[in-house]
């Protein structure tokens, strides 16, 4: 293990480490802590310069209630859910199919197509922007939530396919071969044999995609203009323009936007990290 484990160090070092840890964490999360404190203080505090001290009054419930009362925050949150949940289901579902095809079948196009998915996943969004707007207009889906979902699912299929294909590739191939020898159909093999084995990958992908889409800002600004359909990320930015200098409300709204992915991360930590660090341990 590197660096040297604490047990092998002096007791002074141990003590120092245990003190340094919370201090480092405090400074690392200071911006977040500060904005949380702002979100629970009365507006008067900010005007009088009490920005970092103890709030003169704790207005946790009042401030957050005000955000919901004065803005469409609730609608924005619902919209974000309506965008991210279907995208999650669609893109992960598609990737199970494509990943299976690219990992199991040895045909000439398997590797080129896999690389096509990988490469497409990395392109800058701007090169897709105008044609995607045109497609959405032609399909009569511009400015709608399904239109955004369709695009997100198609785009995320690239990343999901990369993930799924590598995961399925690591399964023992003998399993599939012996099933084939027994005369099990190809679709049966996929449904009965492979799908139950890739459950961990599905879980990891779902958490990741949900977070990615929840945090998406660019595509929502491009594909949706109607205010009542905007997701929370765009909504929060709009609020920033409306509530000039009302920092207690802006910070409360920002934290609301950040909360769901954070909760999801804490609940599904193992899957989340497994997804993100795919490939970090082997070439």
């Amino acid at each position, binding site marked *: 293990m*590197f660096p040297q484990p*604490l047990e092998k160090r002096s007791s002074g070092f141990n003590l120092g*480490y245990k003190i340094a840890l919370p201090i*480092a*964490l405090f400074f*690392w*999360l200071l*911006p977040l802590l*500060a904005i949380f404190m702002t979100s629970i203080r009365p507006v008067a505090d900010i005007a009088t*310069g009490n920005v970092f001290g103890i709030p003169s009054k704790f207005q946790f419930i009042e401030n957050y209630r005000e955000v919901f009362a004065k803005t469409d925050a609730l609608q924005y949150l619902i919209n974000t859910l309506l965008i991210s949940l279907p995208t999650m289901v669609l893109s992960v579902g*598609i*990737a199970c*199919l*494509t990943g299976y*095809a*690219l990992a*199991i*079948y040895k*045909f000439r196009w398997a*590797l080129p197509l896999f*690389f096509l998915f990988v490469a*497409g996943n*990395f*392109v*800058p*969004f*701007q*090169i*897709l*922007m*105008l044609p*995607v*707007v*045109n*497609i959405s207009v032609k399909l*009569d889906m511009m*400015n*709608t939530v*399904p*239109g955004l979902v369709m695009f997100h699912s*198609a*785009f995320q*299929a*690239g990343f999901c396919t990369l993930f799924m294909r590598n995961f399925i590739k690591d399964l023992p191939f003998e399993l599939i071969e012996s099933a084939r020898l027994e005369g099990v159909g*190809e679709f049966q093999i996929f449904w009965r044999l492979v799908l139950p084995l890739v459950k961990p990958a599905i879980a990891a992908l779902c958490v990741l995609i949900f977070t990615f889409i929840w945090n998406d*800002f*660019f595509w929502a*600004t491009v594909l949706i203009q109607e205010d009542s359909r905007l997701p929370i990320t*765009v909504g929060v930015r709009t609020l*920033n323009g409306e509530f000039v200098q009302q920092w207690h409300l802006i910070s409360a709204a*920002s*934290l609301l*936007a*950040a909360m769901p992915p*954070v909760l999801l*991360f804490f609940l599904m930590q193992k899957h989340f990290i497994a997804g993100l*660090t795919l490939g*970090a*341990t082997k*070439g």
Partner: protein
Amino acid sequence: MTASAADLTGKFDTSSKQVGVAAAILAVCTLILVFVIDTSLVQEVLGLARAFDARVPTFFIRVAILIVALGAALYLVTGLSYYKRNKLAVTPWLFLAIGLGLFMLYVIVPIFQSISYSFTKWDGLYDINGDWTGEWVGLHNYKLLMSDPNFYTSLKNNILWLLLYMLAVPIGLFIALFLNQTVRGIRIYKSLFFFPFVISQVVVGLIFVWAYNPQFGLLSEFWSWFFCDNKVNIVGNLTRVCSVEPPSILGNEHTATYGIIAAGLWPQIAYCMILYLTGLNNVSPDQVEAGQLDGARGWKMLWHVVLPQLKPATFIAVVVTVIGALRSFDMIATMTQGGPFGSTNVLAYYMYDQAVGEGVGRYGYGSAIATVLFLIMLLYISYFLYRMYQDEKEGH
């Protein structure tokens, strides 16, 4: 013998009943999709007022019928004798169909469309007959780019982003080394350190806008510890008097980009840290012990024994950092919108601004900027694919 031969021929025959039923369903679905469903019809049936409202229900009906059609097509194909004889060659394409189709439609084809737009002058509109209103101008847009000072600012900023964003990799490694211990509660610490990555970039941007605020931000608070005094003015209010005024980082065209990059580093460092933590988990203890026997300690051990084993993690960290740097958009959009005086533009934001920003609709010019950005990214993508190809050759 003859019986089994008959079995075999029966096995590979086209089952006409299956194909017939599937073809009928497919035909009906296609008919509905092409001719019957349109927005105005759904509007009438459901009694919706505006064309706008009808689009979503129409969409779901279309998707439902499309799924039935796809199922029918699948059923049809599997009934054909051709499929039965060439199972292993045909099946992967059936599995790929939906994903590849969508990916082509929304990702691969648009890349080429965008490149072709970059040779035109177009404001994004079609005339009343649905005809394209642009005109072909050859390399004109690229010539314009060459003499556009904003383009050079954006390019310079992109390079700045790339270089400074790379700091996330060593800092991430440093924090990972710091946290790679086993004390009580270390798992909680690790996940709390990872926190900033989970938060949307828009929110990170807003947090830092506030942190940089020269009147009451986090930074001005630190500033006032050194340069300011609180005094009571004539009316009795507490005011702050500073010997040197706190800087307005985002308001100054020389510092704004650095301010945004620093904000962007926060989540990116967290990402690199988690990559390295996972990598460190898999560092072989035997080699570390062997290194110790050879007298390697501290930096030497890190450089010669541990870092080579962390190579895969470093590779992924560099790749995601490069992509993050070139994709930087959300932060700029929330923190400065390219200002002050266009000094924080990067190619991604400048393209957006030119193509759909207020009052400008320069699709052709915007596409030219996007193409340049794409070509830069293509360098990295090619390198990444090359590395993957090497691994594939070795691995399988």
